[in-house]
């Protein structure tokens, strides 16, 4: 498998599934300047992150440039082992990536 931009970890405990994800992304605000040339670095950040479990959306996140580089997100939802958790992100340049994992499987 090609290297994904997303690292997704899921853990089930007592009827709850913890979802942790780390996305590799520059998250440029568009306000930063290139130190050498003085030109502004164009904004490039993730605008939407969507997490689905078994096809049902459990969390949608609208992000802005104020979210850190290589963003991290963590939350819990009521679920069980074997759930298929899918995370998709889209950025302001129209790029996107997604990953799907089964809860309880490495």
């Amino acid at each position, binding site marked *: 498998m090609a290297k994904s931009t997303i690292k997704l970890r899921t853990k089930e405990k007592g009827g*709850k599934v913890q979802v942790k994800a780390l996305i590799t992304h520059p*998250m440029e*605000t568009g*306000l*930063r*300047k290139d130190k050498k040339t003085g030109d502004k670095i164009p904004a490039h950040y993730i*605008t*939407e992150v969507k997490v689905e*479990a078994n096809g*049902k*959306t*459990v*969390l*949608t*996140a*609208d*992000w*802005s*440039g*104020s*979210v*850190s*580089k290589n*963003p*991290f*997100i*963590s*939350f*819990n*939802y*009521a*679920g069980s082992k074997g759930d298929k958790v899918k995370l998709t992100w889209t950025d*302001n340049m129209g790029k996107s990536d997604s990953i799907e994992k089964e809860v309880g499987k490495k």
Partner: protein
Amino acid sequence: MKRRSFLKSTLVASAAGVAVTSGILGSSNVFAASVVGADLAKAKSVDEILTMLGAADAAESDKIKIKAPEIAENGAVVPVGITSEIEGTTEIISLTAANPTPFAARYMIGEGAEAAVKSRFKMGMTTDVIAIVKAGDKFYTAKTNVKVTKGGCGG
């Protein structure tokens, strides 16, 4: 570039369209729900965002817990966790007041998910972190201060 600005203008136009409809219905909440993240990200002040959301009259609540460091050594990566114990929480919005674009993130809590999210934000300087929680038709808010000793925006 042209394509993107076209998209943006369509978004604004559709938002305005919804505003008209909501005016007829007499409900400001219809409008609030339709505010798109891209528009919020353009807002330059906290007040502007509150107005966009229709949350200007948000009540302070101690049921919202913000977990953030008191002093952040590196403003580029500040872990912030927001937990809402308010029943029926559907949205958690996080703002960093002193940033040029205060809007940081909005989380729409789906069915079965807990109203608790953790992520990491950039903070250019010492700032208030404001959490806005939407439960039902009402907004609640809480805030905490984070001291940043080193800036996060190209510092």
